[in-house]
């Protein structure tokens, strides 16, 4: 049992290392090759945990081979457009000027329901509102609405830039100061300490403190258990 525990620890931390090596892309929407490696890694990782008679290397070696192949192929795809097309395919236009390209949809095995579902998830309920819809290589659908259906932007409404609030960053989370965010907001620890004193809340009692470049603070105190 102790051996199993140790093997699980080793596999767990090495798989985390492997996933970190592959980067954030692996955690979001996946390209075909990334999906294959993720499925393979999850299966391979379980081998040495489930089967104590198997050497731990029998799952770790293939995992790390897949990780290195994944990284090397990504690097190759960045250098060669042809390699990228072979490995990931290319985006396909399925709606242009509100007109469905049924041949493309058949080729992609993309049904009308799939398309309407993808449009609804983007708050588009009328096909006629779509100027362009593209099925990306990771299977997601990108949509460009027609001019008449577009939501006007602040620029269209000619709103002054001074009306916008700069984004807030967490500067204290659960009693811990995030120094990098303090710097980005143009403040320092002395300023923070003064603010805490003014608000009557020491840093250790703060659950979340948000701050923006205009030095506007939002405080959430820790609740007593």
């Amino acid at each position, binding site marked *: 049992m102790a051996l199993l525990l140790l093997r699980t620890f080793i596999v767990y931390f090495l798989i985390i290392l492997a996933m970190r*090596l592959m*980067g954030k892309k692996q955690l979001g929407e996946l390209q075909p090759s990334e999906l294959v490696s993720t499925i393979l890694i999850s299966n391979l990782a379980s081998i040495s945990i489930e089967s*104590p*008679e*198997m*050497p731990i*290397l029998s799952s770790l*070696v293939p995992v*790390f*081979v897949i*990780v*290195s*192949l994944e*990284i*090397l192929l990504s*690097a190759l795809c*960045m250098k060669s457009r042809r390699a990228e097309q072979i490995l990931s395919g290319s985006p396909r236009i399925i709606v242009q000027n509100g007109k469905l390209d049924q041949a493309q949809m058949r080729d992609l095995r993309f049904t009308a329901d799939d398309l309407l579902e993808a449009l609804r998830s983007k708050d588009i309920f009328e096909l006629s509102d779509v100027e362009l819809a593209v099925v990306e290589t990771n299977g997601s659908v990108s949509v460009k609405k027609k001019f008449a259906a577009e939501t006007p932007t602040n620029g269209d409404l000619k709103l002054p830039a001074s009306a916008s609030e700069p984004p807030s960053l967490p500067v204290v989370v659960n009693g811990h100061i995030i120094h990098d965010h303090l710097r980005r907001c143009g403040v320092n620890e002395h300023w923070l300490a003064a603010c805490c004193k003014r608000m009557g809340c020491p840093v250790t009692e703060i659950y979340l403190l948000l701050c923006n470049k205009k030095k506007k603070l939002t405080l959430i105190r820790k609740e007593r258990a």
Partner: protein
Amino acid sequence: MKARVRAAWVIMAAVIALSLAGHIWVHRATERTILQLEDLAACARSGDYKKAGQKALETAEDFDKCAHGLEMFMRREAVAEISVSLHGLSAYANRESLYDLCSEADKTIRQLRLLEHMYCTLF
């Protein structure tokens, strides 16, 4: 990205080196044990049972020394099976059990060849 690509090359090189090391380790361990087994069978056939018994014990001890290394690359039960077979050989090192000794030694040689085949062949 460059650091990741470099890390990928390092990992790939390490994995290839490990696989080659495993290949060499398994080949050497199995070949040495097979030679020892053939030697002990030859001793037994020539009537030197005492030497054959001694060689059987030596072979089992030598194999046990490299068994931990082999278990890094091979299924543990396959390695343990061969170790058990080798430890039983010395009991047959007498005139009455010559046939059994030779047949057990042959069986263990076949097991060792299978072990090497399992690790070293692609299909």
